[in-house]
């Protein structure tokens, strides 16, 4: 059962190799923490799991009325609710994951200062919780599709790739923000604000095709542009994928993830002393 030859040397700034072994050892903790958060969330609410369904449905209706009916933006040949919902999915996944993971460390301050485990587990399992919500919302999308008798194309096979990109974008930014949050509590206020703005500067309520041609590439530096376009392409398949834009978004996601991970690892050793 036990590794008898286990030896560990603790020295200032010299535990890098061990870290990834530890992540492997604590791999079940990712699951347990996510499981805890889901259990607790539904124990404290009256209608429980219905919240996951109500939020995207209401947002879909509001956006369809405002952007589709009042502003009369083009719907690219698919029902406007589907256009909105296929973007709501990655957006809500991203924004919930970002919000929860950025608060994950200070929300569990007590655990951080009293037990050792790789701190990376904490923001990651927050993202996993949001992923569970995503799966539920996804089943609503399927129902909306059935309602409109809409058949998705084979592009849907690429969907897991775009889900993965959303995951990485949320985790990367979440790592950055939760580490900053430990030191500077201001980020508690920054994150909801960024998410609120992000909803309008990302093509959630409208199609990214209404952005002028000259600015398309620049617009795609917002990582969610590439992700949302990718989702729409994979689910609705109504317009071709704008490849340079996708690459720009991927590059941004990659950059965010690497720098987020780097910053998290750099500051991680002081969490217990500062939090």
């Amino acid at each position, binding site marked *: 059962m036990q590794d008898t030859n286990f030896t560990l040397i603790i020295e200032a700034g010299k535990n890098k190799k061990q870290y990834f072994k530890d992540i492997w050892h604590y791999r079940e903790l990712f699951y*347990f923490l996510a499981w805890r958060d889901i259990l607790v969330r539904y124990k404290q609410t009256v209608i429980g799991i219905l919240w996951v369904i109500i939020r995207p449905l209401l947002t879909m209706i509001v956006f369809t009325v405002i952007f589709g009916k009042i502003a009369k933006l083009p719907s690219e040949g698919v029902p406007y609710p589907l256009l909105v919902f296929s973007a709501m999915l990655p957006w809500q996944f991203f924004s919930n994951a970002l919000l929860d993971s950025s608060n994950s460390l200070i929300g569990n301050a007590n655990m951080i200062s009293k037990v050792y485990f790789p701190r990376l587990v904490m923001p990651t399992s927050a993202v996993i919780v949001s992923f569970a919500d995503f799966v539920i919302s996804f089943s609503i999308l399927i129902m909306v599709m059935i309602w409109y008798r809409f058949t998705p194309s084979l592009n849907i096979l690429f969907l897991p790739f775009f889900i993965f990109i959303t995951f990485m974008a949320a985790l990367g930014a979440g790592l950055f923000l939760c580490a900053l949050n430990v030191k500077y509590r201001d980020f508690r206020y920054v994150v909801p604000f960024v998410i609120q703005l992000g909803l309008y500067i990302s093509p959630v309520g409208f199609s990214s095709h209404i952005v002028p041609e000259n600015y398309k590439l620049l617009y795609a530096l917002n990582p969610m542009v590439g992700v949302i376009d990718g989702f729409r392409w994979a689910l609705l398949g109504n317009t071709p994928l704008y490849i340079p834009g996708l690459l720009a978004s991927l590059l941004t996601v990659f950059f965010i993830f690497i720098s987020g991970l780097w910053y998290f690892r750099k500051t991680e050793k002081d969490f217990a002393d500062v939090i």
Partner: protein
Amino acid sequence: MSNTIIKVENLSKRYVIKHQNRERYTTLRDVITNTFNFSNKKKLHTSEEFWAVNNLSFNIGQGERLGIIGRNGAGKSTLLKLISRITEPTMGKITLNGRVASLLEIGTGFHPELTGRENIFLNGAVLGMRRLEIKKKFDEIVSFAEIEQFLDTPVKRYSSGMYVRLAFAVAAHLEPEILIVDEVLAVGDAHFQKKCLGKMEDVGKEGRTVLFVSHNMMAIRQLCPRCILIDQGKLIIDDKTNTTINHYNQISKNTKIDEKTHIHNEKLRRGEGAIRFTKIEITNALGESCPSFKIGESIFFKMSYKVFKIMDGVKIHIALKSGISRETVTNFEHILLDNPVLPDTEGDVTLEIAAHHVIRSGEYPLYFHLADKHDSPASIDVVDEVTLPLVISEESDLHTPGIPMRSGCFSVPSRIIESKIHSPNHHA
């Protein structure tokens, strides 16, 4: 049995204390204002280095049970945090030849909304156990904790005793080579404390190593053949438990609380300096200074104070706090002087908690408070958890019938034995 399992070499941990900030974290505003603050105003932050652990070296062999003792703030907890990898050392090295499980606090990671069953799995995972391991040990944990009927009740409805039992049971059924336990047995009834000590002894007999921090000298004596004493982050003595404890008692007797003790530490000492304690001593009926008592023994508090600014009367207040929740479990106060008191007046007072069977066994951090008779916040002196905690232990191995095993708050009868003042020139 003698292969080294923990090797600590020149271990040091430094903290930087910023005096300006009350909170340990900063806000962006502070950073920005300080960056752009080239002003000629006085310096905003004065920081002070503080070595919580200072150049410690010792070895622990396999299967050894080592006690660690020292006063509050001596560095014991920091040492345990370093060994359990919660925080990183500033200098030095620790070599561990086995996995560590640490119980620095009761029920870390417990969620009040979750049931006992759910928390066992969660807590086990937090402590580094695999799901299969937890499943295998599940029944053993439940029966050790004696919570069978409440397995599916949210732990927020548990009594504090049940909570502690469950938390200890999970940690004790881990199978680490090294088990670290900090002060967690201070609550729980005597029966369960005994059970825990027994369990830790078994852990040691199975060839695993135990590090045990406590103020409860009886528990240390019972469990640990060897003991180290830490003071101000330094290793004072590393010897057989009896020798170390004797040394410790000697030191504790010699450390005096006076008007300057911890005066810069807002947590341990509060007050503007209108009045200060100049001595606090806890003694038994024979006048021997000692913090441990049997149930039913009389406890004497001998204190002296000095007045620095004019005060409208003097009132003393002493509280016994819970060793775990740090909330007051009982307190008593007495007005010592009813008239205005002039600066430079000094006073001595002795209080007694008489020999009644009212305080259940356990450890009680102590809170001392001086004020004027109106309790004005400007004229107080608080000495909070600076002295050794009061330790009350069972008289014998059996429960003595008739001892009220109270939980929650209770009141104790206390009285002034003696109170006298020395006025500077004339009586106020």
